[in-house]
Structures are given as structure tokens and as C-alpha cells.
């Protein structure tokens, strides 16, 4: 197999970094808490892909094992986070983070 036809590892890692920073900018800019949680999932996925790419590059299974545990944590996080979101919506009737100012008032 000739080498110039293949994807370099730094290209894959740069792609992960790009997805991560798209997610980070979404977390920082958006005010809808549903979209913020989705952007957090985006960042988690970018890190997962980085792990899998390094596992492939270094021929080590540790990266893929880490991805399993991250997926479990992400599932628990989104379940609890969306539960909190529903509890918040019941009292505040909004999903907008600008409207959450109970401590200020």
C-alpha cells in the first residue's frame, strides 16, 4: 500500500479537534439548554473519536476501552441532565438559560 494515499493521523486528530471546538462554541454561544446539552454530546463524541484513532494508530485497545466508559458516562449524564431539565421546566416554564436567575432575584 502506498503511503500518500492514506489519511495521516494528524488529519484525523485535527478533525476531532474541529468537532470539539464546534461543540465548545455552541456551548458558549447558545442559550437554549437543550442545544447546549447536544453540544456537550458533540464534544464527548469528538474525544471518543480521538481515543479510537489513537487506539488504531498505537495498536492498543486501551483507547477503545476508554470509549466504552465514556459512552456509559454520557448516557448517565444525558439521563440525569434531561431529568434536571424537566424539573427546571416545571418550575420556570422555560428552556432558556437567560431566564434562570433565581439567585439574582
Amino acid at each position, binding site marked *: 500500500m502506498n503511503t500518500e494515499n492514506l489519511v495521516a493521523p494528524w488529519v484525523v486528530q485535527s478533525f476531532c479537534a474541529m468537532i470539539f471546538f*464546534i461543540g465548545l462554541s455552541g456551548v458558549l454561544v447558545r442559550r437554549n439548554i*437543550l*442545544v447546549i446539552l447536544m453540544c456537550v454530546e458533540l464534544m464527548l463524541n469528538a474525544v471518543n473519536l480521538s481515543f479510537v484513532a489513537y487506539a488504531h494508530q498505537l495498536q492498543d485497545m486501551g483507547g477503545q476501552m476508554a470509549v*466504552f466508559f465514556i459512552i456509559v458516562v454520557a448516557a448517565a449524564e444525558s439521563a440525569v441532565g434531561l431529568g434536571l431539565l424537566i424539573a427546571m421546566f416545571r418550575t420556570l416554564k422555560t428552556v432558556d438559560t437567560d431566564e434562570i436567575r433565581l439567585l439574582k432575584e
Partner: protein
Amino acid sequence: MDISPVGFYLFAGVAIACSLLVVFKKSPVSSAFSLILVFAAFAGIYANLAAHLVAALQVLVYAGAIMVLFIFVIMLLSADEPSFDMGRSHPLVKALVGFFCVALFVMFVWALKKSDHGQVLVGPYSVAAVAASGGNSKVVSQLMFTRYILPFELTSILLLAGIVGAIALAKRNLGKEGK
């Protein structure tokens, strides 16, 4: 990396376009459906990187369970009115966020490109070795129940804590409404 460039660039392009849509779409439902496409594209890249079990779990857990939860909550709260929340933040804030994200990304690319020598100390799990010893799923499962048994058991405690926490959150509100 011995992965097919066509597959990688195709899935990567879809993932980047759809993740931009997740951030910039005004309606949460459009964001959620773009996110499903991102997860599907990521599953394709995992399969390309010979991580077949991770690809299957990505489809099952992320594109299946987590996205169903998200869309369920959006529908339950009927929170699908388009929000113009990005226009509300200060232009300076948006410019700063954009600048820092792009600057950090450029720094990452520079560092990754610099550190990519091609000479790395590789482990025993090459694609050929994994295929010879029964495939990705078998090797990963054997590792999970031998070397990684402690973190695996700890995840069950984490999931239990998550369930108890979610029920406690829901139940406290129910009790308050009952009184």
C-alpha cells in the same frame, strides 16, 4: 493510518457540516436530527478505523437511546419554537468565542502536525492480530472482563447512581405537587 481516504473524508465532511447545523439551527428539533447524522457519520468513521464494537454501540446508544431521549424531551416540553438566542448575545462575546475557538483549533492542528513523526511505539493489537484472534468484539470483550474488570464494575455503580438520582429528581417534584 491504513484507513480508506474516501470513506474518511466523506464521513468527516458530513460530520462537520451537520455539527455546524447543530450549533446554528434555530429549532431544537432540527439540531437534534442533525446530531443524529453526526452520530451516524462518527459510526462510519469508527467502522473505518476497525473499531466495530464501538461503531455498533455508537449507533445503539448514541443515535438510538440518547437521541430518543433528547427528542422525547423536546416533544414533551413542546420546546420546539425556534429560538433566536444567538442574536441576543453580545457581538463582542460572539467574536471572542469565535476567535478563541479558531485560535485553539489552529494551535491543536499545529501541535498535532508537529508531533506526528510516524515513529511510534505500537502495542500488540494490530488490525491483523485482532482479526486473527477472533475479531474486534471478541478481543474487546475479553479485555473488558479481565484487565478492565474494575472500571467495568464501577460503571454499574455509576449507572445505579444515575438511576437513583433521576428517580429522586422526578419523585421530589411529584411529592411537592401532591401536597
